């Protein structure tokens, strides 16, 4: 196996809210798996609290959220808030989906570390997950 497999990163891919379009989330989950990540997939129609609670139990190093139906402005920050409630705000959150440029500043402000919109090269997304995981584990092992 390659050197990158020396540390298995666990991540969570989830979809908050009522949006049932899971094509993007599943695509990212598979891409992460094929890049050596262990991906906890929580399925569609979850509340932000459910996603945060699962992330804590699974002790993931990063969370990826997908939204294709416009709920991201409310729902992505709600996941960050829910993580705070569980004292787990150190778990980095990455967002993706159909997200207009004008929403990006507000999401970054709310603590979403990266946001990827359609057309982003897959490599860039995988690298962002890897980097998020590395920095999480670096902080955890201090």
């Amino acid at each position, binding site marked *: *196996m390659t050197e990158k*497999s020396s540390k*298995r990163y*666990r991540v969570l891919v989830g979809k908050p809210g009522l949006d049932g379009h899971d094509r993007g989330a599943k695509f990212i*989950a*598979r891409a*992460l*798996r*094929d*890049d*050596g*990540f*262990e*991906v*906890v*997939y*929580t*399925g569609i129609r*979850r509340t932000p*609290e*459910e996603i945060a*609670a*699962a992330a*804590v*139990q*699974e*002790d993931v190093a990063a969370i990826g959220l997908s939204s294709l139906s416009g709920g991201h402005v409310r729902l992505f920050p709600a996941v960050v808030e829910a993580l705070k409630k*569980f*004292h*787990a705000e150190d778990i980095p959150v990455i967002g993706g989906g159909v997200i207009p440029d004008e929403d990006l500043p507000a999401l970054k402000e709310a603590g979403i570390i990266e946001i990827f919109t359609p057309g982003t090269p897959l490599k860039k997304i995988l690298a962002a997950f890897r980097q998020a995981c590395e920095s999480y584990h670096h902080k*955890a092992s201090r």
Partner: protein
Amino acid sequence: MIGEVEHLINGLRKHDPRAIGRAISIVEDGGESAEILLSSLDESLIYQTLVLGITGPPGAGKSTLTSRIISHLRKQDIRLGVIAIDPSSPISGGAILGDRIRMMRHALDQDVVVRSMAARGRLGGLCSAAGGVVRVMANGGCSTIIIETVGVGQSEMDIVRLADITAMVLAPGLGDDIQAMKAGLLEVADLLVVNKADRPGAEMLAMDMEAMIRNRKSARETPVCRTVATEGTGVSDLVTTIGSIDQQHRASGEHHHRRKKSFQLEVIDRALEIIRPELLSTLKDLDGKHELDPGRTARRLVEMLFLK
């Protein structure tokens, strides 16, 4: 490192979800921290727990059934843990862990500790890792721990040996009775569950299983339960059956016997992991000097390692 372990052990006592999650990761990744953590745990808590193995072919409804069993046990105010094992990709080493989807109704219940685990293609190893997770969950206050795994490979069957009681979940339409006769799957089960019992062919499958159990020489009784996990039908009877098998096992000494056997298995598993790197490096030293067959090379290797 010891400070961190102490902090985590304190967290386990307080049932702190974050501490339980962290502790499980440490145990799963192995190494020195894992050893320190595991040796600091309370063994009596581990002995008291009921470890229930749920296995069966993919698509039989194991996760959905597990979720129903959780609901049932929660009504009795039992705090429980679930270890859901999914296969790792043999190529990338990654995994998609999706068993949780069927259990999300318990996501906000702090007394249901669910942990997904990738098999990680460890030769053996899976058993010691899962055994470690059982220990952490028991110390995190879980009095029942369910291990859910696909019952196909050898390492998955080893997992079953960690369990006090094993339920084999079958469903109609996943192959005929010959499939069930293969691979000794039925021999390890303490009870059989025919799930999707409302589907055509379910009653036939259940009767085939009952006939097979009657025809074998073992004196052990293996109940066959019928369930429709998506609707919760038959789950109450199933939980009652599991409870009575557990009582029986504890009274007859079978429980103790199995724990002893699973302890041995875990020790051997861990021992093999300890010597594996040395075996590899010694084998490299041997390379080229011996043109023996694999069997003789293996014997020579072991001799070299232990006579060193």
